[in-house]
């Protein structure tokens, strides 16, 4: 690698509340004065990506995070699930089981009226085209719409339309978008990603569906990492926190543990990152 300053990208993959581990990662990078040239976020990773790219303090990001992952995110879910099963709720490509007003309000409190161009560090958010399954990169205009699209978990949150394209969760096409960082000239990629937990008890069709989702998503995650690893000319540092127990979407009480594990995973790679940065 040449002696020119190496361009460093932070990629935060999908993982819902687990993405809060990126707060721990960010704390370490700030303490070590490691400058980030590009942030790429997918799904839950996009929320934290905004905070980091905006230059927010880790503590501020944590406060916003704590108020986001609450059961209010899922308002209407059980009622709508029942209604969709008994046929009283008609589902189409724009439907979601959850009333997304809480989510939208939360995202507006994080992103405000900010535009991508106003961020301190360039940010790219990844969503998926609902109609053709292709990943879509969003890096212009207002941030709220892009993050809302990236977070549109299929069937749960209603898809989000931007410029005539119906968009859903970036995780559906690119759960850890290292390729985006590579394409935008990153030499060193710090890639924080999360796998889904596997069940060992199955008492319903929903449980089997969840297991299959974990199997599909984890294999997409690894296959995509493997390909990007081969494609890149330089280093990808996988920062994969290992949690002590299953983390489900509303485990706010586990937030300190999640952040700590993010910090640990980053510290593990830190000597190697610093070596490469010279």
């Amino acid at each position, binding site marked *: 690698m040449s002696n020119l300053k190496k361009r460093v990208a932070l990629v935060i993959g999908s993982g819902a509340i687990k993405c809060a581990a990126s707060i721990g990662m960010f704390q370490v990078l700030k303490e070590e004065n490691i400058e980030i040239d590009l942030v790429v976020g997918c799904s839950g990773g996009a929320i934290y990506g905004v905070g980091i790219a905006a230059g927010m303090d880790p503590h501020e990001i944590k406060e916003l995070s704590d108020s986001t992952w609450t059961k209010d995110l899922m308002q209407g879910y059980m009622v709508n699930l029942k209604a969709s099963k008994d046929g009283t709720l008609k589902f189409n490509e724009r439907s979601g089981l959850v009333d997304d007003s809480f989510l939208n309000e939360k995202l507006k409190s994080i992103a405000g009226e900010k535009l991508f161009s106003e961020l301190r560090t360039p940010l790219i958010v990844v969503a998926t085209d609902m109609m053709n399954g292709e990943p879509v990169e969003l890096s212009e205009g207002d941030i709220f719409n892009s993050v809302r699209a990236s977070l549109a978990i299929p069937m749960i949150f209603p898809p989000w339309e931007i410029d005539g394209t119906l968009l859903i969760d970036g995780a559906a096409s690119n759960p850890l978008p290292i390729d985006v960082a590579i394409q935008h000239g990153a030499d060193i990629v710090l890639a924080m990603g999360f796998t889904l937990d596997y069940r060992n008890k199955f008492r319903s069709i929903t449980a089997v569906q969840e297991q299959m989702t974990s199997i599909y998503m984890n294999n997409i995650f690894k296959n995509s990492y*493997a390909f990007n*690893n081969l494609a890149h000319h330089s280093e990808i540092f996988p920062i994969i926190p290992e949690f002590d127990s299953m983390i489900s979407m509303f485990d706010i009480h586990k937030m300190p543990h999640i952040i700590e594990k993010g910090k640990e995973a980053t510290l593990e790679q830190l000597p*190697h990152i610093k070596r*490469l940065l010279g």
Partner: protein
Amino acid sequence: MDIKINYVEGIGVISIGGELDAQSSPELTQFFDKQVAESTQNFVADLQSLAYSSSAGIRIFLGMARDSRRNGGDLRIAAVQPQVDKIFKLSKFDRIVKIFPTVAEAINSFSS
């Protein structure tokens, strides 16, 4: 990084110690290219003393596997340490190259 080779039944057992990353990987590439040029076909990479491998390290091992296979031989991996094993599994490297718990098993695999 520390690299040594010894031959067992015509198989080049390459012991790699230290840490393998973008900075140290050219040394391993040069070393391996020389072995291939000297017509050794089959190799075992003994990773007992390899404490760390980065993504660049994986690419080097893949290159070594590819080159030895082009020559009609193969590369097998042995004695992988936990940190390195994690990255091998994440990169699906273990799907491309056979990995064994010990050097002896890796050597024996060439005759089975």
